[in-house]
């Protein structure tokens, strides 16, 4: 369903993604793992259109995503969640979901505004949003402001927003990050329930327990390359993978710094303190 075909991403001199090729099949959950800086997020961001692709193709069905603007990628049936929550904070939860269902044609948007058409369709969209909220146990929060919800709930709302448009490909970027045990368990159930024959799911996650328990296949990345691919048990016993995870963290950090590079902001990452990136 989602295919990376010899994809390369250069950040300056550094190849953050180096000739990656693999396919994500529908009906199963594919996890992408790897140490920090392995290129997982870059991969997601390229597929979703946030980063350009240096060379290679990314396909959903026959559609080449790398040529499309971001919003057309969404229309092609790919949706995602974000590592750092990006909800529309000031809007109600149900409105957040409705955004994903806004008719793509601006002409019909205008017609709707003047009340010329689309009343029934608007009702139906609203109903769909409520249905999804119901399914994720968020019905009670439908009219609450998204920004006012607890962190775990916000993560779920983001998931709801990603699935309400019935995507063919769903990219989950660290959905369990920051969740407590109970919430992670809940999330796991929701993800498992989402599994469907015509939906390809990609899961990027650091929580190994979660990954091992729900992934059907696992892609291991290191330094921008695919190191191994297989089922949970195959990966666990792969020596190359073990080496990568025990390897030098310093080198990885360099790559990450480069990947996020060229921004003049102070960031504090664990154990790093204050650094300055000069323009």
């Amino acid at each position, binding site marked *: 369903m989602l295919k990376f075909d010899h994809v390369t991403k250069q950040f300056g001199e550094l190849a953050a993604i180096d000739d990656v090729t693999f396919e994500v099949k529908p009906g199963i959950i594919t996890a992408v793992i790897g140490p920090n800086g392995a290129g997982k997020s870059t991969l997601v*961001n390229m597929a979703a259109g*946030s*980063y350009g692709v240096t060379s290679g193709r990314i396909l959903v069905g026959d559609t080449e995503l790398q040529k499309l603007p971001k919003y057309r990628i969404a229309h092609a049936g790919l949706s995602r969640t974000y590592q750092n929550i*990006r909800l529309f*904070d000031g809007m109600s939860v149900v409105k957040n979901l409705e955004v994903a269902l806004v008719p793509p044609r601006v002409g019909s948007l205008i017609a709707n505004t003047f009340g010329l058409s689309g009343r029934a369709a608007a009702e139906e969209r609203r109903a769909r949003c409520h249905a999804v909220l119901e399914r994720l146990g968020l019905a009670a929060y439908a009219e609450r402001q998204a920004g006012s919800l607890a962190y775990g709930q916000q993560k779920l709302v983001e998931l709801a927003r990603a699935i309400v448009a019935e995507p063919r490909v769903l990219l989950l970027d660290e959905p369990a990050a920051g969740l407590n045990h109970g919430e992670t368990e809940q999330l796991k159930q929701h993800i498992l329930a989402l599994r469907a024959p015509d939906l390809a799911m990609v899961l990027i996650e650091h929580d190994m327990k979660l990954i091992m328990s729900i992934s059907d296949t696992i892609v291991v990345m290191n330094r921008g390359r695919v190191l191994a691919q297989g089922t949970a048990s195959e990966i666990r016993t792969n020596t190359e993978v073990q080496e990568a995870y025990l390897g030098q963290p310093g080198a990885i950090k360099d790559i990450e710094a480069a990947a*996020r590079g*060229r*921004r*003049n*902001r*102070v*960031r*504090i990452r664990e154990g790093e*303190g*204050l650094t300055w990136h000069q*323009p």
Partner: protein
Amino acid sequence: MGALILQQTINALTVGSIYALIALGYTMVYGVLRLINFAHSELFTAGAFIGLALAGALGVAGHPTGGLLVGFITFVIIGLAGVSVEIVAYRPLRGTSRLAPMLSALGMAVVIQNAVMLIGGRRPLIYPSFLPSGVIDVFGAIITYKQITIFLVAVILMVALELFVNRTNLGVRIRAVAENAETASLVGINPNMAISLIFFIGPGLGAVAGILYSSFYGVATFTMGFVIGMKAFTAAILGGIGSIPGAVLGGFLLGFIETFATAWMPVLTGGLIGTEYRDIFAFSVLVLILLFRPAGLLGEHVSEETIVYKSDF
């Protein structure tokens, strides 16, 4: 022809120096608070008026050395005024919305302008020049000592500011807050202190610009801030707002654009486009530059995924 080009270049540098000095105040405040400080231009005017009053009180009107003293005291007074304006009108609004402080600044601008009018009067004040007088003739172009002094003072102040921000402990704190107030406070920097410092330096520099400006043109009016403020702000945007070198570059560039539009556009178009199209030309250049460099000349283009602020306003 050569003399004319040289002459216009000197004219442009003089105007540009003043734009650049004022632009610094906008860019520093913007860099930290993302606030268009409309009150800045009025503090510039207030600086000129206070400088004049001080010169009268100290009896040093028209002396270049006395001017240094007057400039220093005015810097401090207007700097403190800037700090007070921030504490009264902007600080309570921090974290509400981006438009609220901006319009509060607009209200403050009206207040300051009218206060200057009521205290200083409506009459354009004849301004004693603190700048040395005299001219030199260079290949047929006339350069006045005033122009040279303005340019030098502006350059010295800008270099001093750049050094202060980059080389001193306080400066690094300001930059840390500018980059990310939250992170800075995690490492023990009090953002309020840094913001107050910025509101001291920015308007202070603006006040010095006000004295230079009035000294150079020989007049101070209570309404003079609005238009020049708008131009200086445009200069700051042109250079890339939030960037100190950008404000300087933008200021000089705007000076050049205006000067050359006035001097050559009527000639080049055979009188079809007159000098009255100067502002249109200046704004068109601004738009074009922003289209190719959406964050200004020296501003940084922030990629989508690293944008810290999700919404624009």
